[in-house]
């Protein structure tokens, strides 16, 4: 279960990464004022990195089997049917 969740999570994270690349591209490419674009870039990237790092650290501590009781639920199902 953990593996499936990891794959889904990484896919979502990749989607966020792609969206962030587009945002950075727009700010650097189309800005008409360098000062404001630099400020916004620093703000965007720094906060995004902080959020992603925090999210990754929380993800590492997660034990989904324990949190959602997947294994015990599966045991119960298999126990009741056989």
């Amino acid at each position, binding site marked *: 279960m953990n593996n499936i969740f990891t794959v889904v999570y990484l896919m*979502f994270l990749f989607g*966020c990464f792609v*969206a*962030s690349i*587009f*945002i950075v591209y*727009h*700010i650097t490419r*189309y*800005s*008409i*004022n*360098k*000062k404001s674009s630099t400020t*916004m870039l620093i703000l*965007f990237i720094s*906060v*995004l990195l902080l*959020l*992603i790092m*925090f*999210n990754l650290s*929380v*993800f590492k*501590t*997660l034990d*989904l089997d*324990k*949190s*959602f009781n997947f294994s015990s639920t599966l045991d119960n199902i298999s126990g009741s049917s056989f």
Partner: protein
Amino acid sequence: MQKFEKFYFSGQHNGEIIIKIIRRHWFNILEQYFIVIGLLFLMLLSLQFLPMFFLGSTEMPVLIFAESFLAILIWIYIFIIWIDFYFDVWIITNERIVNIEQKDLFIRTISELRFDKIQDISIEIFGLIPTILNFGDIYVQTAGNTERFCFRNVPDPQKIKGLIMNMQTMVVKKDEAEIINRISPLLRGQ
């Protein structure tokens, strides 16, 4: 005019001076941020009350993980809205009006209008909030073109209309003076 010395837009001519940069009124972006504010409020509420009534100690990390992931999505969404607002711009220069229209991340149109092509300018302030906050639409009718040039939800439309009309008058007078300068030697020669 010195205010916009450090500004530069793609396609700016040599010697072209930016006179005014107009973006939509701040209420327009605030309107879109209401969803974000609502979501942040819900996140804070859920962090405060869900653990008290529904969640045990094992589910708490899952909630924090979900909330922090939602925070990433909200942060990206905030910037997508900001890009839509910040890069949607009308630039009035001493030569023309440039309309750069940004829709989300992938649609961007640039059009321009020379002052001598302007035939008529009208403004429209529609609704209670636009009337109180003084923002609205400006429509510029051009010669030989059925489509109107539109500035949407811009602050103080009356003042911008006045500025465009002044610029048009100046450009037309300058053109007339240039024509007179050019043809006067020919007339004298005759």
